[in-house]
């Protein structure tokens, strides 16, 4: 385990050095992400400016929801974004390189890249959360403060596990980006809007099948004090770490199957 971590850190340092050669890219990329988030938040802002609230969610609560998702996502995009590219390695057969070296293919693949774009997401998210926290006059208890980092990490793990699983589809079909896109589409809706505005089947999907609602909606109910403790579904507000754990177990199983499948195909 320590061995793997040391290897990962070394690989990441190498790819960081390669990246930092292109400073203009870095600045443009940051600008790009900040502009994207500004437009998204602007749209939510306009809607609430005109309609006062969205199904009982006022502007700062919606920003909190958006940024809670974004903070978990930023860690994912820093370290795991390149799952999107895995299909290229598989189709072109360049994935072989990870199997030939005497180290875990997973660590090797992870170490290939770090996406600096995650830093831009992270700054937007932290700024948004601080603003929301102050403007909503939240007073978190010690338990809520402890729960907060757990929620963020759970969010990262949920998104990572889901993306890893959809990326693994490529081991069987050669293509996977569209499946990853589909997960992303649900992610975008869940990030922007509280899922209580949607119809039943949508809520079932994002809770039970592609459980991205645990990245922000359910924990936000708890953290914003919107949770009604008598409601039969109140326990969902605390479930993010459990969901993250289950998903990562499933994802690691899928990954193992996928690697076995790739080797046996002689590829």
């Amino acid at each position: 385990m320590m061995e793997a971590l040391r290897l990962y850190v070394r690989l990441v340092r190498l790819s960081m050095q390669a990246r930092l050669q292109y400073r203009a890219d870095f600045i443009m990329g940051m600008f790009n992400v900040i502009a994207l988030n500004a437009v998204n938040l602007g749209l939510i802002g306009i809607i609430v400016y005109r309609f006062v609230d969205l199904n009982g969610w006022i502007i700062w609560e919606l920003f909190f929801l958006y940024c809670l998702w974004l903070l978990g996502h930023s860690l994912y995009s820093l370290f795991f974004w390149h799952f999107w590219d895995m299909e290229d390695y598989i189709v072109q057969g360049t994935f072989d390189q990870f199997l030939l070296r005497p180290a875990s293919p997973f660590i090797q693949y992870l170490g290939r890249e770090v996406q600096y774009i995650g830093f831009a997401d992270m700054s937007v998210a932290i700024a948004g959360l601080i603003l929301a926290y102050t403007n909503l006059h939240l007073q978190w208890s010690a338990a809520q403060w402890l729960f907060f980092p757990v929620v963020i990490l759970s969010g990262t793990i949920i998104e990572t596990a889901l993306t890893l699983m959809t990326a693994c589809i490529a081991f069987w079909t050669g293509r996977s980006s569209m499946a990853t896109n589909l997960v992303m589409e649900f992610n975008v809706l869940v990030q922007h809007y509280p899922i209580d505005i949607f119809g039943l089947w949508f809520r079932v999907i994002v809770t039970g099948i592609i459980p991205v609602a645990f990245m922000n909606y359910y924990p936000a109910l708890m953290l914003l004090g919107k949770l009604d403790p008598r409601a039969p579904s109140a326990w969902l507000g605390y479930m993010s770490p459990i969901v993250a754990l289950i998903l990562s177990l499933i994802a690691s199983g899928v990954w193992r199957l996928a690697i076995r499948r790739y080797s046996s195909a002689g590829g």
Partner: protein
Amino acid sequence: MKIFWSFTRQAFQFIVAYRFDFFMEFVLAVVRMYGIYWVWRILYTQKPGAFGVDLVQMTTYGVMGMALEMFIWSRPQWYMASQVKSGAIDTDLMKPLDFHLYMLARSTGEMLIGAGVLGLPALLVAYIFLGVQFPPDVLAGLLFVLSLVLGFLLLFHLNFLLGSLAIVALDIRHISWAYFSVVRFLGGQIVPLWLFPPFVAIIAEVLPFKGTYYIPISIYIGRLAGADALNALGFQAIWLVALVALSRVLWGMAHRRLVVQGG
């Protein structure tokens, strides 16, 4: 004209080759339409008849924004950027067709296929399941189609300008998200311009972007009718002329630069 059609056919073959991706694209679009439908439905249940439109008009606006998204976006800028990068642009320049027209032909092909394969089926789903309405009368329907064509051409030229800019000045990969989101925002794809706060509306009203989504869809739902609709079409036409002229100039510069560099 014959050459124009042969390039359009090329685009068609490309799309047939990637039919699975198109099917998934369709699913994504349905999810998006569903999402925006509920947003407006909830807001208009809270505040019925707000800002002079009713619930069905507003959900239709939202769903149409997502439907148009699937086919009015042509991507000449990507093609230009990648051809320049790989050096393959010189074969394009040798083709017996003006490059600007060549790009337009390709994009038109993509748009027609996109509309047929994605747009119309998605709208069919929207008519059946999301209660999207038809235009109020035949005239509005015709004006909508005309406005949509102008919108497509406007967006094509904005993208073509960006592509030319990519050749002259910069790497466009890293501003693409920012560009897309600004066009969608000022174009009124998700939130119509009449909801914008005054200081943003002033900017959005004069820029060409509102000709891409806002004007066609507003005509479709009957929010812009009669003289207003004709004025809006005039606005699109004037901007189109300006953008075509600008495209020719900027492409001329980009072209010279490519030739000087030896293709």
